């Protein structure tokens, strides 16, 4: 049994003439500790799939099972606890809480966990310790994304979901963020599922899944994995 089992996931938006089938039956199995990159152009359904894995969105059909536990069978309360316990989420637009400072933003994640990591240690690892009393709008995009990663990993989640984590960042900062995600994966052993349309990022993955028009077009184990530091595009 795989750590994450994604079986027959279908999803559509709209009805009648405006109906769009976003996912047309996705089957994926992911092992614990893997870095999986979901590649695909805009509208391929990769972010929708990530939201369904994250329990933010519902599938029309199919199921997600984490350690054999199906999310579709969970009540809203259990689903909330599932997200709290298993998931860390990194968004493209960071989605930090603007009225909380950097430390407080990270602590929100810690507060909700029963096995949180040490806040100051995380802030130091992320290079944010000296900025901890600043508000998100006083930091650069890269620093905000690092905060978002801190908020996600402080819960020490089993699964780190990253939705275009470098989508709003320049080359140099993007590489910093990818190195950080890789470091987190090595240090804490979280399973990382990363959505991106940047083809180069696939090289740091253990497994690559290419999506197009809501279906898997290609899936393979990356035998020539390189470190995030060696990525180039």
């Amino acid at each position, binding site marked *: 049994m795989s750590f994450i089992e994604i079986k027959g996931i279908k999803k559509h938006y709209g009805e009648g003439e405006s109906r769009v089938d976003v996912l047309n039956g996705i089957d994926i199995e992911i092992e614990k500790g893997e870095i999986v990159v979901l590649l695909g152009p805009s509208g391929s359904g990769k972010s929708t799939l990530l939201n369904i894995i994250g*329990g933010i969105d519902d599938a029309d059909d199919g199921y997600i099972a984490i350690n054999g536990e199906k999310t579709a069978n969970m009540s809203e309360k259990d689903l909330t606890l599932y*997200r709290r316990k298993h998931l860390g*989420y990194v968004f493209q*637009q960071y*989605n930090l809480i*603007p*009225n909380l400072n950097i430390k407080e933003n990270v602590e929100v994640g810690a507060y909700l966990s029963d096995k949180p990591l040490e806040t100051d240690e995380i802030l130091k690892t992320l290079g944010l310790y000296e900025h901890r009393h600043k508000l998100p709008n006083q930091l650069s995009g890269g620093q905000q994304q690092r905060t978002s990663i801190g908020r996600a990993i402080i819960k020490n989640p089993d699964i780190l979901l990253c939705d275009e984590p470098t989508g709003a960042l320049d080359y140099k900062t993007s590489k910093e963020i990818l190195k950080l995600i890789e470091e987190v994966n090595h240090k804490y052993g979280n399973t990382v599922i990363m959505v991106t349309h940047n083809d180069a990022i696939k090289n740091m993955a253990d497994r690559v899944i290419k999506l197009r028009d809501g279906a898997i077009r290609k899936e393979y184990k990356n035998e020539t994995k390189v470190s995030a530091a060696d990525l180039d595009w």
Partner: protein
Amino acid sequence: MDERNFFQQLAFDFTRCFITEDRWQLLLKGILVTIEVSLVAIALGTVIGFLIALCNLSKNKFLKTIGGIYTDVIRGTPSVTQLMIIYFVIFATAPIPKWLIASIAFGINSGAYVSEIIRAGIQSIDKGQTEAGRSLGLNASQTMTHIIMPQALKNIFPALCNEFIVLIKETAIVGYVGLMDIQKAGDFIKSATFSAFMPLFATAIIYYVLIKVLTLGLKQLEKKLRKSDVR
């Protein structure tokens, strides 16, 4: 004939309107009635407004319909008509003090406007904030309470202050149900003295000062709220 210059005439009118027969006490009582009605109406309007906003934002069709009808009816009818219906029809035989009935009427009226302000404030918060809350493991109500509302409140505060100011001025129609507020006291003095200038200007000045004090207080509060955004 007794000739008075402008200032002597003013002093004479002032004395006749406010000092003779202690008519200033009417205005004082009027101020208390206005404050009493306004404060209760503001509190009630805020509570109703919040609940109706939640109904309007709810996915539950029944709640959404209730919220929609409420907002539509209240905004579509004059407040003086609502006041009179509530006083002369709904609470016609109820043993409730006049000022409280007026407060309820203005609270119900204000609730519709406050609900739209709150709804707009909540909807102005980026969808990503809700996603962030849910992904962290907060349920829908925790996300609303801990993440969305604190941000929304800061945004809606100026509009809410404006609504409170409008509400205070709106209470000037309570005379229709026989309550002696500032406006009614002014009217009473006008009728008793056949002088329009002094009582009407006094009424305007009293409203202005009341609203100025409230505005300054609310501005200070807003400043404190905004202070938490700059560290």
